[in-house]
């Protein structure tokens, strides 16, 4: 990789040892992928994946301390993934004790983040690209982000350019103000290796379709045909929500950083099949395949027949529209079943700013009356508490299913269980 004079001087230690190590890390990272140069980060804000003050992550805090001590801070402010805990989320005494021990460095870590360039106190969400949050990149922006679900959304739906960076690397890009030019930053790297033919008899469940695509293509780029039949050709709020959830499943069940949807996502609309590489493999997805995939998800509850003790909706965090729609659907179904409250303790998760806005609506009172908690935590970090992981928890999130013991159900199955009860 050829560095320009300024980058070379940073590598040589002109701005101190910590900055030199930051640039050395980025250069070695780029060299792995044959990057020939660094390019400026043009997005207004970064996004970090590491939001949790796990007591055992001392090595990470040491890097942060070293950077702060030498004044090596981010050139752009950043948002960060959700906090791990909140008082309003149900947890028993022992679980709470465990949370306190597990995340004992949370306050200290948040102070580090503030010093390094955190946007504000409420910038803790995996859906930083929602308009309420204020970190929505422009088409073509070069980003230094991590958080797989945010990266795949920014690339695919917004047309920004970002590699699937790891935690710490994304911070280094925001500090240096440049990132190595390779992979999804390049035109060639954004071309599709796969054509996915969606051939279903109804709109496929976003979370299962994403899972099917991710498991097949792994880290490749898919060009999805046939989905515009169900989603239309305009990126309205409902369609963006669908793509958010589908993308999160492609990224967690595989390692997808970018997908294109024919006639819908910005690059697919502009470039059409020119985006598809010659000789791209074809994978057809029909109703039977989706049903088979869902049926094969392992159930790792100790007692697979156990009654669910909790339900999480919102991984990735729910949008304003999703909060409204879920609330209305649950209230309608409760009414149909002659119930007033949900049968299973349920937590909806959304970004602090989306949640704040929703709390001012009439639907919020209906949500609270139905016994549902609105929170901004990361359900994954909740489930990482071993005492929570032992509980039978259900979710409509394929990402949460993948990383924890939570059991996946489709939206309509979740609705039934919440309003009628029982597995």
């Amino acid at each position, binding site marked *: 990789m050829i560095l320009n004079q300024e980058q070379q001087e940073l590598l040589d230690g002109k701005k101190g040892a910590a900055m030199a190590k930051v640039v050395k890390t980025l250069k070695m990272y780029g060299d792995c992928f044959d990057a020939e140069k660094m390019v400026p980060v043009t997005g207004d804000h970064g996004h970090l994946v590491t939001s949790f003050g796990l007591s055992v992550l001392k090595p990470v805090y040491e890097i942060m301390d070293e950077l702060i001590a030498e004044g090596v801070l981010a050139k752009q402010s950043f948002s960060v993934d959700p906090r791990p805990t909140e008082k309003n989320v149900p947890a028993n005494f022992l679980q709470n004790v465990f949370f306190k021990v597990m995340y004992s460095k949370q306050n200290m870590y948040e102070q580090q983040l503030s010093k390094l360039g955190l946007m504000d106190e409420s910038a803790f969400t995996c859906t930083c690209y929602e308009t309420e949050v204020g970190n929505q990149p422009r088409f073509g922006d070069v980003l230094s982000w991590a958080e797989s679900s945010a990266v795949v959304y920014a690339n695919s739906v917004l047309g920004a350019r970002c590699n699937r*960076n790891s935690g710490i690397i994304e911070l280094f890009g925001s500090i240096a103000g440049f990132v190595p030019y390779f992979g999804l930053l390049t035109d060639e790297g954004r071309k599709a290796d796969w054509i996915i033919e969606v051939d279903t008899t109804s709109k496929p469940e976003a979370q299962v379709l994403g899972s099917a695509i991710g498991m097949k293509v792994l880290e490749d780029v898919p060009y999805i045909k046939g989905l515009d039949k169900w989603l239309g050709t305009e990126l309205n709020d409902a369609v963006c929500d669908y793509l958010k959830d589908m993308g999160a499943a492609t990224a967690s069940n595989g390692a997808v950083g970018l997908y294109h949807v024919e006639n819908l996502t910005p690059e697919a609309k502009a470039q059409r099949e020119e985006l598809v590489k010659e000789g791209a493999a074809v994978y057809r997805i029909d109703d039977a395949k989706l049903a088979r995939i869902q049926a094969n998800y392992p159930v790792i509850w100790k007692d697979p027949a156990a009654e669910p003790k909790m339900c999480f909706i919102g991984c990735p965090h729910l949008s304003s529209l999703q909060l409204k729609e879920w609330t209305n659907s649950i209230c309608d179904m409760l009414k149909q079943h002659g119930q007033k409250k949900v049968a299973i303790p349920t937590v909806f998760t959304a970004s602090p700013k989306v949640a704040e806005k929703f709390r001012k609506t009439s639907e919020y009172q209906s949500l609270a009356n139905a016994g549902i908690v609105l929170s901004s935590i990361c359900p994954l970090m909740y489930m*990482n508490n071993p005492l929570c992981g032992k509980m039978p928890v259900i979710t409509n999130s394929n990402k949460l299913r993948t990383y924890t013991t939570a059991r996946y159900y489709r939206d309509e199955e979740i609705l039934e269980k919440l309003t009628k009860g029982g597995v």
Partner: protein
Amino acid sequence: MKTFKGRVIVPGNIKAEALVTKSGFNTLASFQKSLMFGDKEAKCSDQNNPELFGKPMQGKVLCLPQTIGSTTGGMVLYAATKMERQAACFLFSQKIDSLAAAGTILSAVWTNTPVPTIDCLGLEFLDYVKSGMLVTVEEDGTVTVDQ
């Protein structure tokens, strides 16, 4: 005995026992419990990986296609190295992925114990090597597997 040649990501000389997974290595899921609960052997905690689940990873030559899963992966590999729970070496059959690359590079630049890492060893390598075999890794990317 068979010899393979790959691309050097982090150079080093190592002789140790192989631990092999033919499916993607989920870094966060694999190291999560050992990092959280102080298991010095770093037994793999990924329930979705039957080849590795419950097996000690510390000090082994980890042979894998690529890593998968959370973008915390690189940070987790770095933390494992700093906490002395790391594998002795990473041998990738495919081109290294961005998360694993981040982890091995962070370990090389920010710790005193870089973990030798070689990629592009090919499918034949992963077909040949089995857990328990003795593997010798040289600085130039030469990997020798003894049966």
